[in-house]
């Protein structure tokens, strides 16, 4: 309808143009900015978790250093590769959406979905080991320090906990010397680990749903995916999920030791 009206004025309007927008430029910008608004909220709530991580790691550097050795660097690195590659294939899907090549879009979206499943499977093996080792926070949590692990006597001097004594004086203790707390603090590490990688994995699952929907829409030639924007916005989401992992990987798997 709007196309017919527009053509009377001598314009050729893109059939994807919604009537509330002046032109495709404005519509595209609105869609991209709308998606970014959503991503900003995502940055904020992931940011809060990253902040919590920073606060607790700063308070318990020695605990985080020791406990993080229970994570598998190799699996983490492979998963990083998997997600980076899936970002590339998603970018290629967006490219082919812009070029209006339906088959190649389907191929690249399909590959991206396979990578997403690969990521989850590797993650699943990692978590499975955590369940087996009683490293999942909760009533069954158990952290047994290995033979080779040196007892923590002296922590770096900076992080201290200030306690008020009965005589009214404040006494500072280096935090990591409070030995009985070690298991609790190890649990704190694993809580952050499961919370953050879990939320991330949840985003991967949602990504599979979004990309799967697009895949079937392309398969059945749904008119909405003639327009490249749905694939591009899904791509923005997927790249964001990749960015979160880019930070999670070094923070949990690569804590430097001294």
């Amino acid at each position: 309808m709007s196309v017919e009206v527009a053509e009377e004025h001598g314009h050729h309007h893109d059939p994807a143009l919604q009537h509330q927008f002046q032109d495709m430029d404005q519509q595209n910008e609105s869609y991209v900015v709308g998606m970014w608004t959503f991503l900003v909220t995502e940055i904020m709530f992931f940011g809060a978790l990253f902040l919590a991580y920073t606060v607790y790691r700063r308070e318990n550097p020695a605990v985080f250093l020791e406990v993080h050795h229970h994570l598998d660097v190799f699996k983490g690195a492979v998963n990083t590769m998997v997600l980076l590659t899936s970002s590339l294939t998603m970018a290629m899907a967006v490219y082919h959406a812009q070029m209006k090549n339906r088959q190649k879009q389907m191929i690249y979206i399909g590959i991206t979905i396979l990578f997403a499943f690969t990521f989850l499977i590797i993650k699943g093996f990692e978590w499975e080991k955590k369940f087996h080792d009683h490293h999942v926070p909760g009533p069954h949590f158990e952290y047994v320090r290995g033979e080779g692990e040196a007892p923590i006597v002296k922590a770096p001097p900076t992080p201290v906990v200030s306690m008020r004594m009965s005589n009214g004086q404040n006494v500072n203790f280096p935090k990591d010397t409070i030995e009985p707390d070690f298991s609790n603090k190890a649990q704190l590490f694993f809580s952050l680990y499961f919370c953050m990688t879990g939320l991330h994995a949840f985003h991967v699952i949602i990504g599979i749903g979004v990309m799967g929907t697009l895949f079937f829409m392309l398969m059945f030639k749904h008119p909405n995916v003639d327009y490249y924007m749905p694939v591009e916005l899904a791509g923005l989401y997927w790249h964001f999920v990749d960015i979160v992992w880019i930070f999670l990987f070094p923070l949990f798997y690569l804590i430097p030791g001294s």
Partner: protein
Amino acid sequence: MDHNASDLAHQPGETHQTHHITQPIVYYVVYALLVIFMLLTVGASYVNMGSLNNLVAMTIATIKAVLVVLFFMQVKMGTRLTWVWAAIGFIWLIFLFGTLGDYVTRNWISVTGW
């Protein structure tokens, strides 16, 4: 003008869009850089640089994130409004991490009850 625009609209890749179409070669180069940086960050974690380790790891992660945002997410080719919107999230993140100043400075002055 209108005539030209509609002519171009029929060529794939030359439609009058908000953002230009990024060519695949750009994606491949960015991907190669991301992989190199990933290997760098793993390698760097095995080199003891003391307190510099964290800085190096986070710098590499930030460079990777910027590459993804600019090229994969096409913000580099985006409109100014897209730039502002993409930047806002990260600016607020900086404010959020500003609260760390409190944690860091708590012990600088001994105040009873803290």
